[in-house]
């Protein structure tokens, strides 16, 4: 009995040792076989199938390269722990968010500032990649973008004789009218804290001013000054919800909106595929959040939803670049945009889906602005603070907490 246990223990140890160096042996084997293995790590589970198809096509064209489609759950955290272990995948596909910013700052990615591929990308998205990391160099190639816009039910709008609101006053008036007709203007899903962010991002981006975060870092302004209008407007929107708005989550909201339980849905276009899944026949449209009373000034919040970065420690940067170039090719990018309902960061590639008609103008004008929450450190936990705000609706307290948390995180650095 004792012997058997010892055997199990020691074999468990050897096994763990073996798996620890498994990566290396695997790589050597693949190289000696004439095949190069590169790992493509991305955070989009919904795009897994699309990438599978593209990878298959790529491997046919390049029989000596084997691309692994790695897409674990909770990819951001997995990526960070792998970075801490210095075991980065060859290609990283994430959004221009704090995960990307931290990794770029930590020097994990190759500098692509001078890459010719960037000539073909919308400059505003390249700027966003720079801004979010706070660095002079560009460390990733933007690929797809999303848009933070109000989704509305065309059938209900027609029934009540409403047109798409262009100003804040029209927006509130439309909500009033829907409420008066006994319907729900907005379906809120505050049980999931993050669902407060789409609306708040749009409000803040349009009212905070151009240089808010630069000024904040210099100590010239505060959330109490710069975010007051956005927060007050956010609280005003809360009047037009439904009864159990604290108890419903994102998934509930998608289904409820699809079933016509509310006229508008304060989300981004990423929710559309889920809504369509729940009701393929729904007639929906989107429009940018009309935050101010000057429609000329309205900016659409649109961020880089997917970018490609090559890790500095990659053993096969050439092959990795080849794969990225392949994805950037017009036909392949088009296939991705069509299947994922996404907007392209590539110049001249427009999303032709009639559902997204309402956003065309903003894109044509270039009236785009990045998500403000990407500039707020995650340890502040903006989403949960906003969730708190939906409960007590105390604007003053919220702004004070934001300032206090910002200070605290800065101090601890």
């Amino acid at each position, binding site marked *: 009995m*004792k012997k058997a*246990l*010892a055997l199990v*223990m*020691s074999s*468990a*140890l050897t096994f763990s040792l073996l798996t620890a160096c498994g990566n290396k042996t695997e790589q050597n084997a693949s190289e000696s076989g004439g095949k190069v293995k590169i790992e493509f790590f991305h955070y989009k589970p919904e795009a897994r199938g699309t990438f599978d198809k593209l990878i298959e096509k790529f491997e046919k064209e390049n029989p000596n390269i084997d691309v692994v489609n790695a897409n674990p759950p909770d990819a*951001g*955290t997995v990526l*960070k*722990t792998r*970075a*801490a272990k210095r075991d980065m995948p060859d290609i990283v596909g994430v959004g221009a968010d*704090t995960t990307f910013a*931290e*990794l770029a*700052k*930590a*020097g*994990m990615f190759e500098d692509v500032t001078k890459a010719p591929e960037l000539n073909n990308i919308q400059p505003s998205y390249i700027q966003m990649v720079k801004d979010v990391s706070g660095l002079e160099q560009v460390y990733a190639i933007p690929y797809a973008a999303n848009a933070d816009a109000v989704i509305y039910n065309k059938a209900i709008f027609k029934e009540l004789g409403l047109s798409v609101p262009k100003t804040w006053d029209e927006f509130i008036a439309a909500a009033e009218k829907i409420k008066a007709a006994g319907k729900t203007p907005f379906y809120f899903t*505050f*049980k*999931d*804290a993050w669902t407060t962010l789409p609306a708040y991002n749009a409000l803040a981006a349009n009212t905070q001013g151009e240089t808010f975060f630069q000024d904040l870092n210099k100590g010239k302004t505060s959330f109490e000054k710069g975010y007051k209008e956005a927060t007050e407007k956010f609280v005003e929107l809360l009047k037009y919800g439904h*009864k*159990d*708005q*604290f*108890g*419903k*989550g994102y998934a*509930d909201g998608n289904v409820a909106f699809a079933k016509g339980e509310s006229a508008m849905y304060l989300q981004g276009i990423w929710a559309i595929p889920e809504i369509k899944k729940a009701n393929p026949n729904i007639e929906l449209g989107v429009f940018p959040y009309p935050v101010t009373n000057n429609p000329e000034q309205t900016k659409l919040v649109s961020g880089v939803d997917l970018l490609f970065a090559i890790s500095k420690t990659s053993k096969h940067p050439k092959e990795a670049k080849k794969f990225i170039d392949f994805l950037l090719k017009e036909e392949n990018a088009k296939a991705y945009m069509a299947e994922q309902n996404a907007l392209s960061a590539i110049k001249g590639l427009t999303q032709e889906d009639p559902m997204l008609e309402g956003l065309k103008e903003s894109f044509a004008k270039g009236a785009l602005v990045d998500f403000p929450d990407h500039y707020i*450190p*995650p*340890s502040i*936990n903006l989403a*949960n*603070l906003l*969730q*708190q705000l*939906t*409960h007590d609706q105390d604007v003053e307290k919220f702004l004070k907490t934001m300032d206090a948390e910002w200070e*605290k*995180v800065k*101090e*601890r*650095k």
Partner: protein
Amino acid sequence: MTVPAVVLFAVFHTFPALQGIFYSFTNWDGLSLTYDFVGLKNYYYLFRDENVWHSYLFTFQFAIVSTVLVNVLSLAIVIGLNEKIKFKNFFRAVYFLPNVLSVLIVGYIFNYLFANVLPLWGEKLGIEALSTNILGSEKWAWVGIVIVAVWQACALNTILYLAGLQTVPSELYEASSLDGASKWQNFRHITFPMIAPFFTINMVLAMKNFLMVFDQVVALTGGGPGRATESISLLIYNGGFQGGEFAYQSANSVIYFIVIMAVSILQIKFLQKREVDM
């Protein structure tokens, strides 16, 4: 036999723990190649961080209520299961079932109940408090978590109490029945004192487990609404891994470790004294 065990324990437990203590004196964000030593700075800021205080408050409130509830409930279940009832073994299996299920699955099932089924009943019965999802309420979300956690934890504690009951000699009950003792007197003067060591171990285990509550919170509320149900483990996980404050939350976990150890030792000391007194 002991050597591999010691090696395994050291590699997977002692070494990472020491590493955590080491990082708590640095300013490492969990990613960068470099870090500096900052001494006790992290600890200093920890004590000034009201989010930390708040999560301790929530966690202790939750743990105390749940520990008491779990022990009362599993004692009651065990007394019932020890009676001469039909399908005794079947019921024993049923009560153990929650322990077999994964916490996340249980969490999602209850999530559905709280979000859809309970409000429907509340509406029908005209109970205002139940007509909305309690997990979305700042005041009551913690009760939802207590319900799920207790429901699941009862299984293990029940099994331990059942084992304890087997150690009580039946002559004692025979003697007491001759004296005409009631059921309550039986429990008060025989059963409970006789299973005192099991009571101790159950209290300590339950308290320790509930102080470390994590998955139930993730599955049910994600720490919300606001920060109302943010437990210490969740704060450490969120701040350390997603918030980029690895060293700071390492300091938090060092303190957390000391606190849990202190609570467990105090409990054992206090409860064991009670055992001797009997």
